[in-house]
């Protein structure tokens, strides 16, 4: 016990000696936090993919224009969710148009397939992953981007394939509207000429 108090006394003496021997420097540990922040471009955006062309496969097909947008700023990893709807209220971004005229009223609904890509940090990646393309039936769909865009920039580009025979299986269940002379055709077997629309919502969230 005596030994203990002896050592303790020496330790205290050394401690006081250090304190008294003038503090000669000060260290400052600085810390601050940059919050996660995402800002999306102004919307809604109107984009026209173009007009169909008649093909030898007897269909009006559209391999649409490519739309490209500086979609958002984000300083953190993020997720993208794409959803959509159409006039027929199908809950997916599939092109549709209501037939007009005295004998109309039904919806002409077109097989719709998308090629959507996001570019961050100079790398472009498909929203569909290894599939490459997505049928309208695959929406809503979410994909996570685990690395923050270090310059903050997120670019999105998109192309639509509408009523195309080559890709139609990706939006299966929606038949290709042919341009055939066939008395058995129902209203829904033919796509009336005109403008077809749908809406798409792209939502970004911080991870």
């Amino acid at each position, binding site marked *: 016990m005596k030994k203990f108090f002896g050592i303790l006394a020496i330790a205290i003496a050394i*401690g006081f000696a250090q304190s008294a021997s003038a*503090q000669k420097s000060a260290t400052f540990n600085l810390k601050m936090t940059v919050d996660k922040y995402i800002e999306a471009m102004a919307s809604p955006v109107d984009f026209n993919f173009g007009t169909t062309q008649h093909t030898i496969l007897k269909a009006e097909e559209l391999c649409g224009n490519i739309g490209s947008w500086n979609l958002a700023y984000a300083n953190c990893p993020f997720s993208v969710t794409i959803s959509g709807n159409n006039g027929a209220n199908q809950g997916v971004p599939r092109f549709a148009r209501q037939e007009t005229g005295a004998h109309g009223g039904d919806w002409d609904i077109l097989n719709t397939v998308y090629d959507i890509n996001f570019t961050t940090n100079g790398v472009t990646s498909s929203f569909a992953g290894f599939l490459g393309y997505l049928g309208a039936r695959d929406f809503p769909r979410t994909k996570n981007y685990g690395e*923050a865009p270090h310059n903050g920039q997120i670019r999105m580009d998109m192309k639509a394939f509408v009523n195309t025979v080559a890709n139609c299986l990706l939006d299966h269940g929606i038949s290709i509207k042919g341009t055939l002379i066939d008395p058995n055709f129902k209203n829904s077997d033919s796509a009336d000429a005109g403008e077809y629309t749908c809406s798409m919502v792209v939502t970004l969230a911080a991870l």
Partner: protein
Amino acid sequence: MKKRMKLLLFLVLLMPLICCSQDIVLSNINIPGKTSVGVINGAVLGENLLGPKRIIFVWEQGDLQKIQTEKKSSKFTVETSHVEKIPTLYSGRIFSPGIIEPFVFKDKTQEELSILEVKVFPIRLEEPYTLFIDLIVQVSSEPVKSNKSIDAGDYTAKISIKLIEF
């Protein structure tokens, strides 16, 4: 008993060292383009000092920064890291009331402070004095439009201010 003795010895010996380190937490940047400031007033640089002193700024990290490590895996995992820095400006004054003329610095970068020749001369050479510092640390992030970005996260820096006899 031996363990308690060792612990006491450790605490008593380290106490003066622990007391010298001070934390400054700057306000968060929650919107790009915002400025963040941290202030510490009247921090003690040295006590019971005698005679003139030279002051140097020693940096472990001058600009607030964070090291980001990311794992990328395909067939095998690759770990990459990079340092994200926010330009940091320092302002403040070193003073001892009634003993020395305050030394004031404003909006200095790490590099600018490193080359500053700061010397303090007490009015009364034989009288012990205490040297204080007021330190203001300021960082600004880029607004969204500038096409530059500061990644979200915690940023840190460490400065030591040392007094040297001359």
